[in-house]
């Protein structure tokens, strides 16, 4: 890493041991502090380099490699990044406010659009939060279906990471390959939920519909189709010298730093911390599955890539196990309070019709209380904090989105790198702005 003198002294990336929390806090304080919209005069920037030597450059919000509308302010000395600051909010949709206006039964329609690459996770964590407050026991089949869909979704999400990461370091074909494989999973999603994205499939009390006939074959086809393609990625990127040079020792973050910044998911695991909620604090039936937690060593962009690549393999293995384990039974809870009557009964029974009508106009009430539920999403810990005041609408719903927290690692990772590294690092964090800004 290049050494650069700023007003704080050497900005060399320190080794893992000597970076204490205080140090980190100081470093974080060194990121750019500029109100948005203010044009920066380089002379005003408090850095001890000559007047004309640094340049402030805005990456985004409209930039091909900032994954949507992330804006990163970079202070450059030549092509070396001295300081950087992510600026977010360009996709702020007010979803948490909207959620307070929507009934629980409508809620998953809203949350599914938060992190739009892992919609099933958003729906699941919301549903689990509501079910915890309702004290409803979801049928086993529904839980297994949720797990199946989540793992498929994880693969789809990581595939998209592969695509964009490849694209950002300049391997354009990888972009297309990632998308090609993702379509296989999306077509299964479309078959099950009716939509390619934003499914609204997992709802409080279970899932919206049972799996279609012959789903096992479809899922096993996916499991057969994806791994050979992953081996192709190994040929195309993992073993590719240029790719390795572009990502190794780039965007390094140590375990201490990652923990202090609250990073979770592949970023934390790539830094060498074996922390996966599925393994360490099992929820649903993850304790019945056999899988490994993929852990990296160096915490650089390549490790994050490798962790994600191997997580896909683990997920495929888990999906194979899940296919065998899904039991027969109900796909949603048989609780009249929460679940609408089956479509067939509405035609026969007036009561069912009224019940259906009331449920969808008034919703169901959830007892007073507050709860925090967390699951492991492709990018880390996805948490839902739900406060209920006893009515049919959430009083406050807060989503702890991993992208939002992980993005804070950016200034630490970027410092001392090049502009080209910035691109590789941003994509290795894999932030989804829909989740960041909500």
């Amino acid at each position, binding site marked *: 890493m290049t050494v650069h003198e700023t007003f704080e002294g050497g900005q060399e990336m320190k080794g893992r041991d000597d970076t204490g929390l205080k140090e980190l806090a100081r470093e974080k304080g060194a990121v750019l502090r500029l109100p948005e919209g203010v044009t920066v005069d380089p002379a005003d920037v408090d850095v001890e380099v000559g007047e004309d030597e640094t340049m402030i450059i805005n990456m985004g919000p409209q930039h091909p490699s900032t994954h*949507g*509308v992330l804006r990163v302010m970079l202070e450059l000395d030549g092509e070396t990044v001295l300081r950087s600051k992510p600026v977010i909010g360009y*996709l702020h*949709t007010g979803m948490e406010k909207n959620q307070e206006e929507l009934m629980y039964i409508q809620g998953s329609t*809203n949350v599914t659009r938060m992190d739009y690459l892992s919609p099933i996770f958003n729906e699941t964590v919301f549903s689990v939060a509501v079910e915890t407050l309702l004290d409803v026991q979801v049928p086993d089949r529904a839980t297994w279906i949720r797990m199946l869909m989540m793992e498929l979704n994880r693969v789809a999400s990581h595939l998209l990471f592969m695509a964009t990461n490849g694209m950002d370091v300049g391997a354009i074909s990888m972009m297309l390959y990632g998308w090609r494989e993702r*379509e296989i999973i999306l077509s299964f999603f479309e078959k099950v939920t009716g939509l390619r994205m934003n499914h609204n499939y997992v709802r409080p009390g279970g899932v919206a519909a049972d799996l279609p006939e012959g789903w096992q074959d479809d899922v096993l086809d996916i499991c057969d189709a994806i791994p050979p393609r992953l081996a192709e990625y190994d040929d195309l990127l993992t073993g590719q010298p240029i790719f390795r040079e572009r990502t190794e020792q780039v965007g390094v973050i140590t375990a201490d730093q990652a923990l202090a910044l609250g990073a979770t998911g592949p970023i934390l695991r790539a830094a060498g911390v074996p922390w996966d909620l599925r393994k360490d604090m099992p929820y649903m039936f993850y304790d019945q599955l056999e899988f490994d937690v993929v852990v990296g060593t160096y915490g650089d962009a390549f490790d994050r890539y490798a962790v994600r690549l191997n997580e896909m393999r683990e997920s495929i293995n888990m999906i194979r196990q899940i296919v065998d384990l899904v039991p027969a039974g109900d796909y949603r809870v048989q609780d009249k309070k929460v679940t609408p009557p089956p479509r067939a009964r509405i035609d026969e029974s007036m009561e069912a019709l009224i019940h259906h009508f009331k449920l969808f106009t008034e919703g169901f009430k959830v007892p007073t209380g507050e709860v925090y539920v967390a699951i492991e999403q492709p990018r880390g810990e996805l948490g839902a904090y739900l406060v209920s005041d006893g009515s049919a609408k959430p009083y406050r719903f807060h989503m702890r989105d991993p992208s939002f927290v992980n993005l804070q690692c950016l200034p630490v990772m970027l410092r001392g790198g090049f502009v080209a590294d910035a691109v590789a690092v941003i994509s290795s964090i894999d932030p989804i702005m829909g989740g960041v800004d909500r």
Partner: protein
Amino acid sequence: MGLEDLSHNFITGNLETLVKWARRNSVWPATFGLACCAIEMMATGAANYDLARFGMEVFRASPRQADLMIVAGRLSQKMAPVLRQVYDQMMEPKWVISMGVCASSGGMFNNYALVQGVDQVVPVDIYVPGCPPGPQTLMHGIITLHELIRTGEIMQRRQSSGAGAGLTLEGAGR
């Protein structure tokens, strides 16, 4: 440069057909993605749907070189000035596709944070419905745009409604 200054006659008539053909077959989109729809927009460009067939795989990162802005996703109040700036940076002739309900009307998010329809910020030529619209839907929107370029309807509409960011067409496109 453009055909705007020429008077209408046989040669310019044929030239115009040629130019419309060229414009239709070479609509370069700007890389401008906002939210979920951007993912579907990229999926449309990817192997299974392949926008390249229409000569559209040339996603230009620089708005100066782009012809088409696909506003893919919800537009927040904070992003709106940026969107307008990007639109202004694009060179005429330029077209806008509003992809998805959020871009078209604010969609399900009728609240403080979102602009309720990008047509409040930039003139829109084609609205593509859906949340998010699948690649087929977007492609239909694009083909519709091609058709409108071919028949010159878009220019006519801009002429009559004044929409189109100061594009004036005199003589051509009747």
